[in-house]
């Protein structure tokens, strides 16, 4: 296995394109190295993107943030402005693993690992985030929900690398929240994840996006759940409709982390609770 650490995105894409065998991007490595150790992955080339300056920083503000693909969770947590405007995205990023894992893990890695249970993916989808994809010859911008196509698979071409994540302009009276269910208080993979992002106008939900994780092969954007609360002050009936819509959207599996029945039920519970937090953060009063 070769190891390369280029200092610009284009060089990274060129290295990936040139490799005849299996070439993979190394960001935080918190998933990749585990799979390599288990013998599940045997790459011929690793391209370490942590030496690419552009990928190492968080830029922007109200008009929109750009988070570099190699920024570790701990730095996302330390970014005050980001946390103020996008608390749901930041709390999702902070939920990944321990402090030790936070020192390495990245949200782009969380996305590209393409686990149905990734914590940041529902939060990013709810936020309406996009990724900047750089290939050998061209760049493109893609909505986060279009990146993962199934467990372990993405829509990225072999020679493409995600350079950054872009969060949209933050409107006034907006709030987001992400909740996940895990059996312990830390260190588990989400059994269910639910993210809600909404904006208010005169105390009424003007726009909303609701996304779920770990309840289907990919994270889901649940329009029916958002429709259930748009135009409401998040009264109990609206919340119940949202919960029902969340549960109805689930297409989970039985596995070591939870049952179909459990995930379906808890998706509604968490959707409702996340909506309440997002509403409160947006300044809403019930």
């Amino acid at each position, binding site marked *: *296995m*070769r*190891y390369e650490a280029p200092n610009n995105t284009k060089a990274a894409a060129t290295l990936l394109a040139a490799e005849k065998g299996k070439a993979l991007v*190394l960001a*935080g*490595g*918190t998933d990749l*190295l*585990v799979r*390599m*150790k288990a013998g599940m992955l045997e790459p011929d080339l*690793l391209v*370490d993107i*942590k030496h690419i300056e552009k990928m190492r920083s968080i830029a922007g503000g109200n008009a929109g943030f750009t988070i570099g693909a190699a920024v*570790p969770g*701990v730095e996302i947590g330390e970014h005050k402005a980001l946390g103020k405007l996008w608390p749901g995205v930041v709390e999702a990023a902070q939920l990944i*693993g*321990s*402090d*030790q*894992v936070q*020192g*390495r893990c990245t949200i782009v890695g969380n996305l590209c690992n393409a686990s149905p249970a990734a914590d940041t993916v529902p939060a990013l989808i709810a936020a309406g985030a996009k990724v900047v994809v750089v290939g050998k010859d061209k760049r493109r911008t893609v909505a986060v929900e279009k990146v993962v196509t199934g467990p372990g698979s993405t829509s990225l071409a072999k020679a493409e690398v995600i350079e950054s994540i872009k969060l949209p302009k933050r409107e006034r009276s907006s709030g987001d929240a992400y909740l996940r269910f895990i059996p312990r*208080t*830390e*260190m588990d993979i989400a059994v269910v994840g639910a993210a809600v992002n909404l904006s208010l106008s005169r105390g009424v939900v003007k726009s909303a996006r609701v996304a779920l994780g770990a309840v289907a092969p990919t994270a889901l954007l649940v329009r029916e759940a958002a429709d259930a609360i748009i135009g409401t002050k998040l009264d109990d009936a609206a919340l119940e409709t949202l919960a029902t819509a969340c549960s109805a959207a689930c297409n989970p599996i039985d596995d070591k982390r939870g049952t179909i029945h459990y995930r379906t039920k808890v998706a509604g519970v968490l959707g409702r609770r996340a909506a309440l937090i997002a509403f409160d953060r947006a300044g809403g009063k019930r």
Partner: protein
Amino acid sequence: MSGAHVSTTVNGDAVQFACPNDESLLDSLRNRVGLTGVKEGCGTGDCGACSITLDDRLVCSCLVLGVEANGKQIGTVEGLADGDKLHPLQENFIKHAALQCGICTPGFLVAAKVLLERNPDPSEEEIRYALAGNLCRCTGYDKIVRAVQATAKDLRKKSKKKS
């Protein structure tokens, strides 16, 4: 497997080693640098026994490649004491019986040190969450949390005296 020559700094000392590209930093530290205080409990980032600092960030050395350490600053349990003077955390772990078998102790010490540098007055809850990435199977964590609390108090007293 092609390999790399790595120049790095471990506990303040310049260190060089050669390793295959797919070797974890944990294995490099243990088998090439000779620092066996860094322990492997799982190899998957779930137990924290291999905790080190990498450029002052807390990480699991099993989730870092040896080759990635090139040009970095590494801190391990072996670097905690200042000569014959133990770090206050080391003192308090002994004093408060915060270890039984001791295999998790190096990881806890490194993680707790990073916590106290960032937050000199953590609540019990903050300590518990900051140390959630370090598994201990002997103590039920009770005396570990107490030792960290005692150290935080000692260090605050000390810094007050200084200022």
